[in-house]
């Protein structure tokens, strides 16, 4: 059972990771003068969009997700609306945090918000897919020893990696190298994306290594 679950997760992660690569390669064919640094926002939204779409598709197809109690349409719609609201809140939350970290308040607000959108896509959206719009579940997963399934653990790892990646991505900004990727917020978005990819790779590996120690209480 373990192996099957890990294998499933690994393939799901592989699909999500390949979507990031596709989102980087495809616009180069379609959009003129596309480059990761030059037309950064285009790249950013293409990655965010494709990750979002692939995430939702993969988890919907795999049938992972919160157990739904009711199957009525109105319940589903309210869940959808709540999810959207949560996503928006998380964007605003990340935006605020980034501004608190010292991003300019008014100038390049669009760039800052785009970073917030990307971070939300990499973290909150996955939470919404796996846990649903359920704050209690989120708090459970992100408190210590709160994971109840492999997916929870993978969520912890990828989310942590994305945030830490964005955090680390801020370090090169003060260096006086004058490289194109030091422009705000490129290094942070790159850091977040690389962190996310690392998390995608690391999660199955980590779970595989620690499968002896991992005991989930329920399930």
């Amino acid at each position, binding site marked *: 059972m373990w192996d099957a679950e890990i294998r499933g997760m690994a393939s799901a992660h592989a699909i999500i990771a390949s979507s990031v690569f596709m989102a980087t390669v495809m616009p180069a064919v379609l959009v003129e003068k596309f480059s990761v640094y030059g037309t950064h926002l285009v790249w950013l939204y293409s990655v965010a969009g494709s990750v979002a779409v692939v995430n939702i598709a993969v988890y919907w197809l795999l049938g992972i997700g919160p157990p739904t109690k009711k199957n009525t349409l109105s319940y589903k719609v309210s869940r959808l609306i709540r999810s959207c609201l949560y996503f928006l809140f998380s964007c605003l939350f990340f935006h605020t945090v980034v501004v608190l*970290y*010292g991003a300019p308040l008014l100038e390049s607000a669009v760039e800052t918000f785009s970073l917030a959108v990307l971070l939300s896509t990499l973290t909150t959206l996955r939470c919404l897919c796996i846990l649903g719009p359920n704050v209690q579940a989120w708090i459970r997963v992100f*408190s210590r020893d709160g994971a109840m399934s492999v997916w929870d653990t993978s969520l912890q790892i990828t989310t942590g990696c994305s945030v830490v990646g964005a955090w680390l991505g*801020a370090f090169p900004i003060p260096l*006086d190298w004058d490289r194109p990727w030091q422009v705000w917020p490129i290094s942070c978005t790159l850091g977040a994306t690389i962190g996310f990819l690392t998390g995608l790779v690391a999660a199955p590996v980590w779970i595989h290594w620690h499968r002896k120690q991992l005991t989930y209480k329920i399930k």
Partner: protein
Amino acid sequence: MRVSSSVFASLCLVFEICGIALFLRGFFPVPIKSSFSTKNRLSDFPAEPLTGSAPNSTKIPSPLFKKVVIVLIDALREDFVFGPSGNRFMTYTRHVIERGSSHSFVAKARAPTVTMPRIKALTTGSIPGFIDVVMNLNSPALLEDNFIWQAKTAGKKIIFYGDDTWVRLFPKHFMEFDGTTSFFVSDYTEVDNNVTRHLDSTLKRDDWDILILHYLGLDHIGHISGPHSSLVGPKLLEMDDILKKIHASLIARETEGSLPNLLVLCGDHGMSETGSHGGSSEPEINTPLVLISPAFKRKAGWEKPGTLEQVDLAPTLALALGLPISQNSVGRLIPAVFEETSLRDQLRYFHLNGFQLSALLRDSTPDYHKEDGYEQFRVAEKSHGNWMKLYMEGNTSEVLLNMGKKVLKQYLEALKAMSSALSRQLGKYDMYSMIVGMIFIIQVLLLLLLAMPEALSGQARVDLPVASALLSLPFYLLCLLFSSVHVLVCTSAGGSCYFCSLPWALVFSAIVFSSALLCTLVVMATRRLPTASKSPVKTSGSDWALSELDALLLIGTVGHTLSLGASSFVEEEHQTWYFLLNTLCLAVFQDVCRKYFREKRSGNYGADDSPLLPSNKGKEESSSQETSLFSPVAELGVSAGSEKWLALATPLLTLACCRLLRSLNQTGVQWAHLPDLGHWLNSAEHKVVLSLLSVVALILIFILVQRHCSLVSKIALALGLLGVYSYRAAVGNVLFPWQHSGRAVSKGTVEARFVYIFVLGILFTGAKDLLRSLVASTDGRLKSRGLWEVYSGMVLLVALLFRAHNLPTLACCLFVQTIMAQFIWKKLHYDAAQTTIMHYWFGQAFFFFQGNSNNIATVDISVGFVGLESYVEAPAIFLTAFSTYAGPLLWACHLVCYLSSERDRGTVALGHGSYCLALLRSVPAVAYAVLVTALRYHLFIWSVFSPKLLYEAMHTLVTAAVCLFFTFMDHDRSSRP
């Protein structure tokens, strides 16, 4: 020998200070000087080279100019003359540059771009060492060979008007002088009028040879409002008028037959985009140099000015006036000045310059023979001799002319090579002293690290095996070894090391101390080793459960230390601290969330898993009963229900405060030019806002500080804060509500002294309480109150010294301290070590919040004059250091107050705190000393790394003082039964 942690920490810091002092002495060497104590004389001039044995003419070259007027405009940036603003405002000067007989250059100043070292460079032609910046406050007379001295000895009459730094540097050199102090930076008209008022009468007279004018107004404008201020234009117009006046008068006095006059326009340094100076950015080092004289060819139009070094002016002026070049000059003659003279004279001039440079090179480098320039000079001298032989024989052919030009070229190349070889020499370090100092501080750091388990144990006592170390054989062997190494180094190095020049007894005691330390270290390490290997399970099992916060604190400390290796991270260190502080707040926020939400959830869900911190709940209840006197519920009247929300809000409020403060003072290098709130508040049209803000900040400060004080102190504090406001009003920073517009700006001495009285009063009350608690140790509250009073005295002093726009920083500092202490540190049961690290981080961040940076230029020297009529060294230095390190000091003091008020902590908290503080300071200081040694040939060593080294040393000194205070507080606690 068993000592308590706090004593151990202060001892370590004191020894570290000694090591750092030795290191600094080696790192900042005395700049190269030729060993002759005499100065160059005309009679020392070498003969004109001439091959063959014909009678040699030792003709001294005749002067080129009669009178010289030097107009030095402080902080005159290159583009103020050659750029668009020069075109707009300095029309006459531009006309002369483009059409008149003049030469114009961009003269590159060297870092540090501060006035006094630049004056030294302009007059001596040497590049003064970095340590001159530190001496800038109190410049003693210049004893080195310099142009002014040479001119005076040659009987030239010199008149000087302007910055009184000159008067202090050259006492008794001027026939007539009027020094204006650059004390009131806010004054930019009076300083210049003081200079200009003498101009008319002086220009009419004929009894002088050299006139030096140093205008300070532009520099002051830069400091007030930056290079793009609307004040710059009128100032440049004024300067242009002055130049026009001088030039016209010089032209009118030009007579047939006599020598022409020379007018020199230069700047000592430029100004950065924020208007300050001191670093080595392009706008700071590029200054214009315009030489105007009828002796030069007329210009046909605008040419891009060539670049040269600022030090080139001194030898050029010296030879052009027929004076010897000063001994330590590393400058080269400006060829353009001499191009109108005969070829023979030109060769002679360059030969003299080369001779002086080669003498300096020979004197300062042991293997000068290997230098390219020296060899080139020898060759050029030889061909010069050949040329002279042909010349004396009456040869006047084209061949001779070409040959002469070739010799000239050879000279120029030789001069260039020698000058750069000499400039390179400036980074020569006294490696022996540096290494000894480094060994010292590394040993101390290792000692601190090895003692960590004991120092942070429940007893907070460190067992130093000094006795066993002193009685061991290796100790004596080491002493012998070190002594022999010392003798060996000192005899071979020729006594150029500082450490060798120390008295023998001192060196020997240092050797004994170092060997004892080494033996102690070995003993401690061997003692530590078996215990570590015996119980690996225990250490890895339970002790290594680091929380996220611990990991962050560890990573932050290590990461910050590593980041000091990159010059950008040193320049932008504030970013590192702000970043770490933000992350810390978020981590704390997460901890708070966990604490409160976990409890709620376990209530909701029943017991699906045990609480996060099982021991905490019980402890908390017991402690809240114990510390009911100090609990926030009692103090602020907060109900238990809202306490949770306040605790949740605290990290967020802290974050918001930090974000606000961050935009108050833009500091660093890369983003220093961005507009910040501080500049906005300080501009004249926002005076009302600044006044209101100051009032609010002062009221907030009062509310936050008075809580724990006695009634007398409360009243004194209130009056003191009123005094602070009236001082700011008197100085003209803020408005008095009942102030008439015509009120003159004064120095506010009376008001400041009024505040000083209250500061001393509060400090005295606090000290009295502390002593009483020491003698009759019955009430812990007395001591805690005494500590708090000392703290509030410091707050009052800081309020007086901080600029008006920085008062919100102080208020925020107090606010954050209060809420963090009430809702976070107490409630979440962080241990003393964690609390100390957090305090240290906050202290570092506030150091930068208040507008400091790792650049000397941001030190606010004007603080040293608050309440003083004139410059008095000791209080000025104390006040400047105090206000610069106000942030770290206030946080460290708050740490003392907090840790000693936490009575349930037991008596060890203070010991742990001081140990952590010492360790936190030692790690970056030692690592930085090693880094700087490794990077000593880095391009930015003078402009970036050296100032930071001074800051590190000063910070260690301040921390040592705090640790001694800790020890004192800890001592009287431990002396009680």
